[in-house]
């Protein structure tokens, strides 16, 4: 079975470790990659694409050394290969202006503020995964554990 990939980007290992704990329940059905920089995440996404795997969700911090999160998300948004990838900005330090740019130019799907609540983050991640599975035509029935029911019903209702 194909495993959708979640990519988490944050320059702080402790934050990644926290994400690792919060997303532990998804590892059965998803692959989760952790990256310490936007550059590393970009490389991973390229490699995944080359090997035919599907990046489903990108969880990204904003304030990072070298390339910041919003710039990276804009890049991904403009890449024809990654049009279906859902984008979540997870940050506590984005300014008002950064946020506007993130929405307008990077077309982020969700914004979660640090510090986050594990439950809320998990719910958001599931919603985004569900959306991804449906838009990419993957068989959602094999991923019921990681799916958000409400989103699923809502999306399925729109189908014929």
């Amino acid at each position, binding site marked *: 079975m*194909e495993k959708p990939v979640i990519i988490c980007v944050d320059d702080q290992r402790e934050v990644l470790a926290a994400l690792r704990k919060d997303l532990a329940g998804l590892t059965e059905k998803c692959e989760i990659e952790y990256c310490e920089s936007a550059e590393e995440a970009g490389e991973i996404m390229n490699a995944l*694409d*080359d*090997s*035919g*795997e599907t990046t489903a969700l990108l969880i990204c911090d904003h304030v990072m050394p070298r390339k910041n999160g919003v710039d990276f998300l804009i890049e991904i948004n403009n890449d024809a*290969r990654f049009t279906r990838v859902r984008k979540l900005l997870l940050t506590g330090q984005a300014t008002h202006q950064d946020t506007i740019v993130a929405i307008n130019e990077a077309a982020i799907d969700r914004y979660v503020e640090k510090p986050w609540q594990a439950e809320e983050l998990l719910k958001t991640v599931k919603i985004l995964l569900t959306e991804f599975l*449906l*838009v*990419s*035509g*993957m068989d959602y029935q094999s991923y019921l554990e990681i799916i958000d029911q409400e989103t699923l019903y809502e999306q399925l209702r729109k189908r014929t």
Partner: protein
Amino acid sequence: MISKKTMHLSISVVATLLVLVIPVSWIPIDGLTIIEQRILAIFLLATMFWILEPIPIFATSVLIITLELVMVSDKAFFLFQNDGSVANFGSIIAHKEIMATFASPIILLFLGGFFMAIAATKYRLDINLARVLLRPFGSDPRKVLLGLMVITAVFSMFMSNTATTAMMLALLAPILASLEKSDTGKMAFVLGVPFAANIGGIGTPIGTPPNAVALKYLTGENAIGFGNWMGFAVPFVIILLGFTWILLLRLFPPQSATLALDIRGKFLKHWKALTVYVTMGITILLWLLDAFHGMNAYVVAMIPVAVFTATGIVTTEDMKRISWDVLWLVSGGIALGMAMEKSGLAMHIIDSIPFAAFSPLLIVGVATVITIVMATFMSNTATANLMLPIVAALGISLGGLEILGGSKMLILAVTFASSLAMSLAISTPPNAMAQATGLVETRYMRKSGIIIGVVGLSGVYILMFVLRQVGFF
């Protein structure tokens, strides 16, 4: 104030109703039955709707099928059924047959083409091929133009002309932006791509919908295999493409010395991508060799559909992006043609006009010219839908035409002609896209489009002559 649309709609409907309600004897066609009268009305409605477009053209197709089912099928509305009192009622058509046009082999052939196009795009085979194929053309703008046109033509033989043009124009956009404002070469590039797509569509039976419609009439001893079609159509495409290239260079010589297309990417190598490459290769090969392995093009077309769905290469979501409207447009055409043929209407119309009095050459000339003019102002497929049933009947009834190649020749000539209309933005979707770039002046498109149309049509005549000489017809 009545909108133009409403006016077109009412005129069409009133005319149709008129034909429907007047006594059969009023219509100057000998031996016309009630059923034929109704089909004539439907044909009139289709013609007016496809020309005036008060509703989308594919909707007209669906309407044709529905009207046929309601008015002339064996399961028609009871008021339309024959209670035995009408003498010249004519032969009704089985509703299953009408409905089957939605899934006729021709439609499935096209579906196979769509599946291949979706898979190729999804795994970036199209763009990677374009990148590799363009390389030998170097950086001389003239050669790059040739390369772009050749690739566009090749792709449009297997993908829709619209999708091919969209892809190539997207590749072109950055270099067009880099060219000087005054560089006339820009025009050559922007026109070269849609023209190549229009011309390339002629190359295979699945290249463009009119070809598919033509297949409906090329049955029995007139049947043409996939490889057979390409055998004569591809050389025609090559020659016309070469002419177009030279014409564009003459009209719009590029000024810049070098021009480099920067297409990045690499061939994907995972199993799904490899499956796509192999399946497409095998499918095309089987199409070309249809004379040897017993499977015709329709059967072969199902192979990629099965492989791509089974492997999850084309998902349910991808299937939603298939241009169902194009398939339905063709279905409607097939249903219309079938009804005209089955009922005998086509024959009756032909019989009522003294075609035999005209020279066969004149008939071929007039039919192709009418086709190209119609296709210039309306959909190529709709043109083929309207022209081909009549032309097919004409070919059969007109003995004099045999010398020139009979109905097979006439059908092919008309089919080719329907793809040669490209002088206006509304002629074809690729033309519309080129116009939308804002870099094309209408008069230049008109001028070059007309020249290509005239030369292309002459080419068609020569091709038909050659084919006759080699005993193809």
